[in-house]
């Protein structure tokens, strides 16, 4: 048992599992990457000057009317199909009524009891075990504006001097994907939650439906967690944790809520059904508004929009045109590259699958591609705190590097220097080799001169070697390598030295 700074008592994670079974659920919001908003023609570019991407419709001005974005409906159906959902043949938008300044119309146009997609599933793998996550629904709605609370210490509304609203985000198409409760994952529950979000993200990225960048909010996640005493038939009361903005946070939020709720239950208390906020810095959650005083949203069918009735043939065409999804692709590549399940998992977890695939496509062998991306490049990304894909090197350049090593133009050690040059923007590997003069040196006059200079400059070492201490030759090899800035081939240098000193 530990106590956090905020006063939450926490049961040790392993101990939680001796008494309770966790049940998790995830609600994921994905901002679609359509060129225009859900119900008007405004642009959706991220990071534009506040309130420059607005019009009477997304500002909710009197008299304005929505027109549904067909591209957003298509993207939602494709997501539903990728998740094995049933696609509604007829459904409607609904108004969710509540007052908040970031809701321009006084209601959010969403879907209520008639979602576009229902009853799907997503299989995720954790430590070689497959967990099936059932999808309850996938529906389409519009995003809200963004409040900026000025003054005060927290950036939250309490204590702020005033608030500003940016409506650029208002009306961006938002897909909500809701799972059914996931039970039975036990100790793996936090990782299953994370793996689900990661897999969902990869699927949506593969579909090209969104850029799914959690840090920019284009993929947002609410995590529901509850605990039930082991053997109990009834599920416990759940909390809904918001502000979970990274894959790591998904896992931590579930872990934290399990530990906190266990302490509440152990003490004979009752878990409150409430919204909680996740704090990235401390890894803790704190209570938000209570669901028990939940607003009545007075949902009713949106009379300003006509029903959505996707034509069955069109849906079948979309199904047939789905790209290869991440799971199928992983199975295919694992087979093609002859990898073990564990090796494949490493590759996926490192975020290197696509990079390796592209590097292989550019001519490297799978082994070469994996070696560079999981080795030197992974270390560099890690040092820089960046993602592998953010490094300033392309798969084609890595393939070229591997080719240069394979041909013997450079060795591994030189190859790292070549990478330095590529990452510094000095061009492709061959250009860097040329410019920096990094090619492996043959038995050239320059090398002979360097070898002879090393011998002449260290008579004491030469003496030792001749006296039988052959390992002392290493110092001379080092001398030559230094003089040639590593471009010499070490075994060649050793042979040349032996010929001259011992010969």
């Amino acid at each position, binding site marked *: 048992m530990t106590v956090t700074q905020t006063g939450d008592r926490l049961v040790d994670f392993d101990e939680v599992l001796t008494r309770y079974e966790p049940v998790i659920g995830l609600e994921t919001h994905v901002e679609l990457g359509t060129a225009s908003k859900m119900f008007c023609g405004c642009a959706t570019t991220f990071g534009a000057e506040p309130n420059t991407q607005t019009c009477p419709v997304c*500002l*909710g*001005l009197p008299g304005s*009317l929505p*027109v549904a974005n067909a591209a957003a409906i298509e993207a939602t159906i494709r997501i539903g199909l990728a998740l094995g959902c049933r696609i509604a043949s007829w459904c409607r938008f609904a*108004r969710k*009524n509540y007052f908040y300044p970031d809701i321009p*119309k006084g*209601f959010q146009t969403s879907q209520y009891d008639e979602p576009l997609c229902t009853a799907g599933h997503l299989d995720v793998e954790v430590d070689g075990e497959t967990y099936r996550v059932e999808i309850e629904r996938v529906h389409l709605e519009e995003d809200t504006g963004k409040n900026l609370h000025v003054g005060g210490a927290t950036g939250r509304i309490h204590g702020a001097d005033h608030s500003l609203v940016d409506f650029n985000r208002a009306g961006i198409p938002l897909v909500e994907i809701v799972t059914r409760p996931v039970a039975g994952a036990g100790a793996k529950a936090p990782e299953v939650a994370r793996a689900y979000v990661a897999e969902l993200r990869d699927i949506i990225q593969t579909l090209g439906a969104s850029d799914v960048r959690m840090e920019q909010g284009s993929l947002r996640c609410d995590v529901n967690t509850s605990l039930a005493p082991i053997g109990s038939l009834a599920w416990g009361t759940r909390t809904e944790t918001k502000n979970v903005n990274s894959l790591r946070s998904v896992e931590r939020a579930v872990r934290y809520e399990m530990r906190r709720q266990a302490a509440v239950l152990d003490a004979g208390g009752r878990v409150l059904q409430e919204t909680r906020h996740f704090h990235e810095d401390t890894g803790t959650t704190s209570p938000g508004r209570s669901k028990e005083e939940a607003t009545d949203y007075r949902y*009713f069918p949106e009379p300003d929009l006509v029903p959505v009735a996707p034509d069955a043939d069109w849906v079948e065409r979309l199904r047939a045109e789905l790209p290869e999804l991440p799971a199928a692709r992983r199975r295919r590549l694992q087979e093609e590259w002859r990898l073990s399940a564990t090796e494949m998992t490493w590759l996926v977890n490192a975020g290197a699958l696509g990079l390796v695939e592209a590097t292989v496509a550019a001519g490297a062998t799978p082994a070469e591609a994996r070696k560079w991306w999981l080795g030197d490049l992974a270390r560099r990304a890690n040092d820089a705190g960046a993602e592998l894909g953010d490094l300033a090197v392309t798969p084609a350049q890595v393939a070229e590097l591997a080719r240069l090593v394979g041909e013997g133009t450079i060795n591994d050690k030189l190859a790292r220097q070549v990478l330095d040059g590529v990452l510094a923007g000095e061009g492709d590997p061959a250009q860097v080799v040329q410019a920096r003069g990094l090619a492996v040196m043959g038995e050239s006059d320059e090398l002979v001169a360097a070898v002879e200079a090393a011998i002449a400059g260290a008579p004491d070492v030469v003496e030792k070697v001749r006296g039988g201490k052959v390992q002392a030759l290493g110092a001379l090899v080092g001398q030559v390598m230094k003089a040639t800035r590593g471009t010499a081939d070490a075994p060649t240098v050793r042979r040349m030295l032996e010929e001259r000193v011992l010969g």
Partner: protein
Amino acid sequence: MDTDPTALDAVELGRRLAAGELSSVDLTRAFLDRIAERDAGLGAYLHVDGDAALARAAEIDGARGSGVELGPLAGVPVALKDVFVTEGVPTTSGSRILEGWRPPYDATVTTRLKAAGTVLLGKTNMDEFAMGSSTENSAYRPTRNPWDPDRVPGGSSGGSSAAVAGGLAPWALGTDTGGSIRQPAALTGLVGHKPTYGGVSRYGMIAFSSSLDQAGPMARTVLDAALLHEAIGGHDPRDSTSIDAPVPVLAEAARRGAGGDLSGLRVGVVRELGGEGHTDGYEPGVLARVQEAVALLERLGAEVREVSCPAFDLALPAYYLIAPSEASSNLARFEGVRFGLRVGDDGSRSLEEVMSLTREQGFGPEVKRRIILGTYALSAGYYDAYYGQAQKVRTLIGRDFAAAWESGVDVLVSPTSPTVAWPIGARVDDPLAMYAADLCTLPASLAGVPATSVPAGLSGGLPVGLQVMAPALADDRCYRVAAAVEAALDDARGHRLLDELDRRGVAP
């Protein structure tokens, strides 16, 4: 010209403009003068910008002078109900909550009227957010009926009806949610038409009840109404509920109807709207004029029979659940954050308090009554019993119409309003009596079918309207039948009904 142009119909004005007998500037000035003389007493307008109107008129005259080909409406002035947004021109929807708001965009009908070359005289008074049947719910002032200044002009488009009947505009646009074009037209001796739902774009029309609201013409003659309807009608990609079909040819139908031959036409008289056993609340004078009009239709060759539409009896309660429900949501955007009135934002109050104060002070009692009604009807636990049931009634009303058309009836007729115009103030404390004014007009609204009100004569010196309803998209039938009635009555009388109106009766 000998004749005062403010007493002429729009077709005649268009003809004189095209013939060069009249300039748009002179015509516009004539209406502005009449507004200046009479509107203090009548209260038809909320906003008039004479300079802008004259500048626009001069522009049209200039174009005509330089030989530009212009349409039949070019240079003819028009008035718009204040529910339509007009770029840069104040638009209030009759409410304090929008006082001073100048919209940054034009409604589609505004754009289309501009494109047709009309001259905007001003924005007309209305019940706040179109909620009312007398225009007494305007937050600004009541409007008087040109036939009797102590009586209401109907509503909610009472500013438009008073303006046209009083000669303060040749024609005007109104909106009809439960009868707000037809009933004021009937009470002021005008022709008013509610198009098929989806026939005219709602984009830029401040919403009251989205599934019912329709814009339409209010005019001195059936032909004028048809021409104005053609100018604003047709598909608009900005309104998802707008019908993507060609506008029926309406002016031609009106001209054909005026020829007077209705042989082969089958007319159904709706029993539930003033027929046997359903006369409670109907004035005998109204029923008499309607019966005479029906007899006239028969003389013109139509085959008349009675038709029963039992679900029409449920139209009133269904309407007063559906319309307030949608309104409670549509009016949520008026909270003082982005436009219009903001009350109490002095730094000491929370956002919720400012929103509440704004709505408390910005909305009038009838609007609040309907927001509360609608909020209740949509609440969890009550939705099925109220909103859900009302939607079922709506389906039944639609089936009654369908059954009538299937039985071989081409149009249905009824009184437009159970009564003639009533004295100002007589119903303000009795909302149910006020709501009953819409009894005859609600079924067509709920079913989304077109309906016209055409003058059927006077009762006690006040106008009575005949309502002609047709199947969806058959607006042309309404115009044809209405034009036949109009022509026959005008012939019998020797002059138009509006010519009986003492035009000095509305002096301040």
